[in-house]
């Protein structure tokens, strides 16, 4: 089939380096991938086109790029799936990382963040004679997260990194979970302190972009949520993030529905004067438009049934520990 690739190009050695679009018409086999098409362009039409690739089997993680605006592995994306009614397929380098040339990005910030989460096992006690043993059962929940091939697709489309480069990001935090949740690791409390810091687990917006674009089903966001649960379980509850989650849950248990007036007050703390002063202009603007939630918060009818669910779930989870809250997510 015939396809038009619209490629985002950038040459740092140009007199005045500036990115621009360039179109290539290329003939590919019906089952051909975007990577096949790009390689064909480089080999037959334009040898100056720079791209990274290696295995062509979605294993090495080299060829992540944005295809029609969303990060994907070029070798795993069939042209026929993205070429809609003869429209050009746009191809850009991954987002949120500096571009070196054309489709090649500088992964240094990516690796720096992966290193920052200490991606290695930290064991305790005397070394065993042979290997460290872990039961099958204790490792099964890591089956998804160890599939990460470090391609950077999740980092590319992360909405937080778009506005804040300080965020550790989905790939590094998924890796953090992989070690924090490993039964052989003994550095839990130190890790939780590390991941609880500014730029860590609480800065994720839960937007699902990383879950959607990950070519390997790692579901980084779900790992970040599991880390939040672990951070709180380790007693680190004095962040706005943890307090927000706790306050939200308490309010639902109490009345069955959200109390938007008390949620921010409980999160910030009723005596947190600077923060409450900061809230005032927003609150006043809302009040002026009669947009304030009811001051007298009403419970839903039959709230006692909600309370009973809270109690029953608590009993079950404390009782046999089998009702895991870290349930493996289905494939996106």
């Amino acid at each position: 089939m015939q396809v038009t690739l619209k490629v985002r190009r950038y040459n740092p050695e140009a007199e005045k380096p500036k990115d621009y679009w360039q179109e290539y018409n290329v003939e590919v086999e019906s089952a051909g991938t975007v990577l096949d098409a790009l390689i064909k362009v480089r080999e037959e039409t334009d040898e100056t086109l720079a791209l990274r690739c290696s295995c062509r089997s979605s294993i090495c993680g080299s060829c992540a790029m944005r295809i029609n605006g969303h990060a994907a592995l070029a070798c795993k994306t069939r042209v026929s799936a993205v070429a809609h009614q003869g429209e050009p397929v746009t191809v850009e380098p991954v987002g949120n990382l500096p571009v070196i040339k054309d489709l090649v990005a500088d992964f240094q910030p990516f690796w720096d963040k992966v290193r920052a989460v200490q991606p290695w096992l930290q064991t305790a006690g005397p070394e065993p004679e042979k290997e460290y043993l872990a039961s099958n059962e204790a490792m099964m929940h890591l089956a998804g997260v160890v599939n990460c091939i470090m391609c950077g697709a999740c980092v590319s489309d992360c909405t937080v990194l778009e506005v804040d480069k300080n965020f550790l990001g989905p790939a590094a935090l998924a890796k953090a979970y992989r070690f924090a949740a490993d039964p052989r690791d003994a550095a839990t409390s130190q890790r939780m302190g590390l991941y609880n810091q500014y730029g860590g687990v609480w800065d994720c917006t839960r937007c699902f972009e990383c879950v959607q674009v990950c070519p390997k089903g790692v579901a980084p966001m779900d790992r970040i949520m599991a880390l939040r649960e672990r951070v709180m379980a380790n007693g680190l509850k004095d962040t706005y993030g943890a307090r927000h989650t706790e306050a939200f849950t308490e309010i639902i248990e109490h009345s069955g529905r959200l109390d938007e007036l008390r949620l921010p007050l409980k999160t910030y703390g009723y005596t947190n004067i600077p923060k409450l002063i900061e809230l005032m202009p927003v609150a006043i603007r809302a009040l002026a438009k009669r947009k304030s939630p009811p001051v007298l918060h009403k419970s839903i009818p039959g709230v006692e049934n909600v309370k009973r669910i809270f109690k029953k779930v608590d009993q079950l989870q404390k009782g046999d520990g089998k009702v895991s809250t870290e349930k493996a997510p289905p494939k996106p």
Partner: protein
Amino acid sequence: MKFAFYPGCVSRGACPELYPSATAVAAKLGLELEELRGASCTGAGVLQESNLFLGDCLNARTFAMAEAMDRPIMTICSTCQGVMGQARQRINADPDYRARVNQVLAEEGLEYKGTVQVKHMLWVMVEDVGLDTLKSLVVRPLSELRVAPFYGCYIVRPRSALEVDEHVGRLTALESVIEALGGTPVEFPGKTRCCGFPILTINEVNAVAMVAKHTEDAKVRGADAMVTPCPLCHLNLDGYQVKAMGQVRQRIELPILHLPQLIGLALGLDPKALGLGRHIISTAPVLEKLSKVAVRA
């Protein structure tokens, strides 16, 4: 068309203009709504951070209530839609898991059988009311309006929980509705990105930066207004736009409409009844543009 109506907390809380505008539009379109009065909050993904199973039990309770009414659920909040969709997917996929959930519901005499449908009002427009019908009911066409569709996250991702591959129209439903109402959709890069609301209390600078980015992007592309199916996006995009303007030192002032407000305007409903006077960013420029178009008899 009968639905078990799940309005969500925010439509009667911090966005009190949403509930009346949605019910007014539903009445106009002949949608018969019976409210799920005893249903709890979905947990919004926040409660799920501390206890996913608990969240699934609360949502299964709502599903069981809708099953007993023998009606699909209609939501007017993308976040509720997304969280319920994810819960439904987890519970439906695994009979053992469902049995554990039902064990919790049994004390109230409820059981979730795995048959519930959950549909946002946006999808109801496209799949149940139908775009042709919607078009035929327009009396005040939005022909002077350029509208930026802001989907946000939970009504487009994760795709499997929202069954968008089975219903391909869902990913372009906002544009379809804008066009059916006579308006012109404005394409902008952030339409399916996060509005920033979930981290508003945690990292306000980042949350507000997202507001600035999306509203500015839509504005420079000629949008007169932005429309969203999510009241939480609305809270941030409208409520924090003044702060966003301060952050980027730009005058943006882009009116943000709830989906039923946009539909209601085109169907000839009174702007005041649709709560258009209750926005932080004035909707007056939108009404002024609309006044240039003759209302059909």
